[in-house]
């Protein structure tokens, strides 16, 4: 059986992305939900780095760096929102807050 590394990596990225999407649907805890989103971002970065290698172009790794920064900003704002909701009410459920007012 001829086992190539590149399809294994792509399959892993697909699996990680689907795990993240399932976690977003599964989680009640906003922290766990944000971590699932991080899983999806990680899968996207993995595909970008693999594409950079397969196509012989350094642009993929550069875009992966930008996506990494995007993930950091998303985590900061999401965690701040989660903490702000948690301080008002000790409910560990993202569906519980029915209204968000500015």
């Amino acid at each position: 059986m001829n086992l190539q590394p590149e399809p294994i990596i792509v399959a892993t990225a697909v699996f990680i992305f689907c795990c993240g999407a399932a976690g977003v649907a599964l989680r009640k805890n906003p922290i766990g939900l944000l971590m699932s989103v991080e899983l999806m971002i990680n899968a996207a970065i993995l595909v970008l780095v693999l594409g950079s290698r397969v196509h012989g172009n350094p642009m993929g790794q550069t875009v992966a760096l930008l996506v990494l920064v995007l993930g950091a900003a998303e985590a900061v704002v999401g965690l701040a929102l989660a903490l702000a909701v948690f301080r008002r009410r000790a409910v560990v459920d993202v569906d519980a807050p029915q209204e968000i007012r500015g």
Partner: protein
Amino acid sequence: MLPLVPVVVCCALAALTGIGVIALRRPVYVAVALLGHSLSLAALYLAMSAQFSAAAQTLIYSGAIVVLFLIVVALLPSGGAEQTSWPRMAAGAVVLVAMLAGLATAVLASGLAHANREVFSVEQVGAPLFAELLLPFELTAPLLLAAIVAAIALWRRQESRPTADDEGARP
């Protein structure tokens, strides 16, 4: 040609820790699983000879984001296990199966080119930041600034609720 054994080991570790992120109950365990996931991905980048991406993944993800998650988990009022309901687990399973089917079909239809033997230096990776990707690169600065300002604004709005005289009386 990529080395097969390290790639397989790192992929298995990344997939297992990914399952751990969505399956574990306690937030601290989930954060540790995310840390293992990030580190195994960094090892996978090293096996793919993408050293810059491995360093960035280790420093930014493992060093900054996961630690931020751990700090927030420690700050939370209730760090106990979450109760998951059956409809929620069914929804998660449906999403997992449907997206796996769709993405696997798309990937199988696309096919992969053969890998080149190229290893990119940091200089080669960084050069597009000042040429083709200059605008997205510059836009990350206001993005990060907006994220910092938003986080501080959300926090300070909560802090200003109690009156000034009981400041320091309660944590």
